[in-house]
């Protein structure tokens, strides 16, 4: 598939773009790094940045919590792939940021995603259709449990989103399909 890059993406030589895929997270203090989660649907991207140390991180979760695996109950997906789930991924990101030297109480956190994609199907398949909302609820609850309030959040709706964080400036941005990014500082 030939897909032209969005025209307003930062120039490749200006920053090092690190794409965070589903079930991944990154923590960095490199000022030329730009963390991005592309094309979030029901998934949620969580971006965090400490203004004093300029350490930042990003997480891309898929599901609210590890599924109950009836076929193989001994398998702990939350331990194997903690960043895949809101329940285990949010504490992991905060813990890794703290380990790198960021202060949890100073963290500025932005989250986006949790949409109902494929509207008709989301309504007819309530289990999968409601995952976005459950993802959002657990991300917020897990952040609250760490004493963190989101400075901005964009959850729900029926559109995909991309979330970015510039480590040098702590500028967050969210873009919906075909639109200009909206900055959050």
């Amino acid at each position, binding site marked *: *598939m*030939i*897909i*032209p*890059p*969005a025209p307003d*993406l930062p120039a490749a030589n200006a920053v*090092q*773009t*690190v*794409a*965070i*895929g*589903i*079930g*991944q*997270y*990154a*923590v*960095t*203090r*490199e000022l030329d*790094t730009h963390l*991005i989660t*592309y*094309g*979030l*649907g*029901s*998934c949620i991207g969580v971006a965090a940045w400490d203004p004093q140390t300029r350490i930042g991180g990003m997480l891309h979760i*898929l*599901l609210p919590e590890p*599924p109950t*695996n009836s*076929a193989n109950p001994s398998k702990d*997906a939350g331990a*194997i*792939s903690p*960043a*895949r789930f809101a329940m285990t991924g949010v504490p992991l990101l905060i813990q*890794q940021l703290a380990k*790198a030297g960021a202060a949890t109480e100073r963290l500025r956190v932005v989250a986006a995603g949790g*949409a109902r*994609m*494929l*509207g*008709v*199907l989301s309504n007819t398949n309530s289990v*999968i259709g409601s*995952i976005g909302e459950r993802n959002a609820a657990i991300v917020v609850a897990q952040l609250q449990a760490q004493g963190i309030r989101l400075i901005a959040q964009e959850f729900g709706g029926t*559109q*995909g*989103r*991309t979330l970015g964080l510039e480590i040098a400036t702590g500028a967050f941005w969210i*873009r919906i*399909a*075909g639109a200009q990014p909206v900055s959050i500082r």
Partner: protein
Amino acid sequence: MTSRTLPDSDQGDGLGPTLTLRQARQLELVHRAVTMGMARAAEQLSLFVGCPLTIEAPRLGLCPIDELVESTLGSAFDLVDWSAAEAVVTGIYVGVDGDVSGHCILILSPADARALATRMIADLAAPDLPAAPGLPATSGNGAGKASTAQDEALILSALGEVGNITVSSLLNALADATHLRIASTCPAVVTDMAGAILEWPVLDLAQSADQALYIETRITIGSFATSGSLALIPRTEGLARLIAALEGQKGGRR
């Protein structure tokens, strides 16, 4: 230094999960069946829209569930940039039911999707159709005209039919080759970021699986400048039934 953690299954040589010889042979059988099915789908779609087109499946394999979107789009193999996941595409989703349940999504650029729909309904409606929601208008006479709900419904319905024909042909070819019951559900059309659309099958499969079959595909349509793809994503138990049936066929011919 940026520390980026990947799921355990991706660490190591970066080649994805290690396959046994038997699994590799099984995937080869699936690849052959899928290639044949894609050819049948291309043939039927070509007849339906009235222009030559091909659907190839150059690569197929197992990948960690977290990497299904990137493997399907090709960014996992550096074939396209990771930003491919946010490129706006028109996805025509058709559910797969029966012995091999799962998901199928036909992905086209919004302009190509509109051009296909316009071509199909040219005989049924006025030639200057306005843009459907989320689809750019072509440079024809209809550009800039106010869109009516009826026109939008017509375009979406035509695209749904494109998905129906393509996926049904693929599934029928697989069903014929395996004697399994494989059916398709009603199509749903959405124009949005590719990654956000492809997340739907991932959400479903991730409830019970850590690995998934990815099929990298390329649809080349006549004079169109861009290519699309046709993602077939079977659930774990469906893939197992497909493999068992294909192995049975192979054994039966010996």
